């Protein structure tokens, strides 16, 4: 059995730059058909190795194929398109920009080398000292730390079975559209059925929604007696029948 060494790429741009460098391709005049094939072969290999292919690679593959298709158009047709702009232009610009930051990150890496043996005061956190428990928790804090602290409390509370009460955003509009939607499918709906197992707030909301719909002339509401169930009908359907 032998091992396959797969270079690690930070994303599709990184992979494309790798091909460009390896094959000594002129970045300003990328042979798009060839590089598309290489790219697709790489994806195929990843799939064969059962490595999950991130969606951005798939998106890039389709971009490459699109560019390739545009490049294949006959020249006359190309001229008809907006002044025959090179379909590779955007991709090339993206690659150049990315290259600039890759280079900049290289210079950061050089800094690290220089800082390799420099340590600041107070960098060492005690492991075994009994003092650590007392002092360790003191730390400078950022917005992120604050948010994290809150999140941890919330999670702890959830684990304790504490319910975080969400202010439910029940809207009249939702109740209205819900009723109308039911009435496009059903001939009628009863108020009791509508509110079956619903919370008190929702029942109130539906009631208000019904009043509103009646006022707008979109539904009819009938009640057989004072304490009876209320039946709702769509006005448009009512007339059709």
């Amino acid at each position, binding site marked *: 059995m032998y*091992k396959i*060494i*797969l270079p*690690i790429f930070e994303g599709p741009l990184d992979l494309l730059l790798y091909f460009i460098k390896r094959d000594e391709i002129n970045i300003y005049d990328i042979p798009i058909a060839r590089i598309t094939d290489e790219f697709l072969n790489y994806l195929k290999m990843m799939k064969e190795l059962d*490595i*999950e292919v*991130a969606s951005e690679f798939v998106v890039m593959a389709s971009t490459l194929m699109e560019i390739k298709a545009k490049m294949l158009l006959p020249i006359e047709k190309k001229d008809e398109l907006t002044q025959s702009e090179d379909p590779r232009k955007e991709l090339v610009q993206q690659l150049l920009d990315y290259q600039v930051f890759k280079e900049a990150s290289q210079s950061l890496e050089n800094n690290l080398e220089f800082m390799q043996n420099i*340590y*600041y*005061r*107070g*960098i*060492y*956190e*005690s*492991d*075994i*000292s*009994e*003092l*650590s428990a*007392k*002092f*360790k*928790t*003191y*730390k*400078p*804090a*950022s*917005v*992120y*730390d*604050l*948010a*994290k*602290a*809150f*999140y*941890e*409390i*919330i999670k702890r*509370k959830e684990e304790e079975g504490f319910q975080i009460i969400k202010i439910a955003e029940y809207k009249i509009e939702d109740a209205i559209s819900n009723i109308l939607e039911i009435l496009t499918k059903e001939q009628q709906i009863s108020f009791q059925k509508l509110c079956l197992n619903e919370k008190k707030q929702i029942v109130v909301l539906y009631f208000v929604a019904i009043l509103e719909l009646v006022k707008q002339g979109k539904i009819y509401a009938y009640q057989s007696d004072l304490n009876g169930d209320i039946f709702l009908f769509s006005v448009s359907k009512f007339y059709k029948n």
Partner: protein
Amino acid sequence: MLNKFWNLNKTIQKQIIETLIFASEFPISLDELLDIIENKLDFSGLVEQASEITTIEINNVEEVIMNTIEEINSDLQNSNRPYKIIKVANGYTFATRNEFGKILGSLPKFRNKKRFSKAMLETLAIIAYKQPITKPEIEEIRGTNSSEVVNTLLERDLIKIVGRKDTVGRPFMYGTTIEFLKTFGISDLSELPNLEEIRTLIEIKNTREELTLKIDFEEENN
């Protein structure tokens, strides 16, 4: 059993102990110093020189270290350094000499504003997200008495009283201050991450990193 540390010459021994006290975030105990110098450090970068100490039986390493620290302190004094090593709460740490400490005392809150204990950060987070909120409400969420920490936050001007709640006892309600916003570098409360955002910030699947690691490992093996 004596290891390589005790074979180093005295000057370097002193410098290593001084480095460890210098680097420690909090007072470092004798036990920890010993554990580090005997078991954890790699001296291969230093020229090793057998010193007279190797021929002497060291009965009490703790005492040797304490003496070394005393010697460092004499050196610091002789070279006019304004700080020295002191023993506090069973550990060693650097502190300014009295006369210079006094000078620092005349500075208003000397650049120490951003330090928080876990309790402070928790309480501040609850107030920031739930304001206006009363102390009983804070205590219910934290499940612990929070009087002291609320007072500290008030003193540090990070929270303020914003009114009273119309319930039994009419307790004070607290909210955050402008100083709070300044400390955390945001311009208003809406800039705080909401719960959903915190969740995505914190709970991110690490599948990709794992993959990278796996492959790195294979490369190293070749």
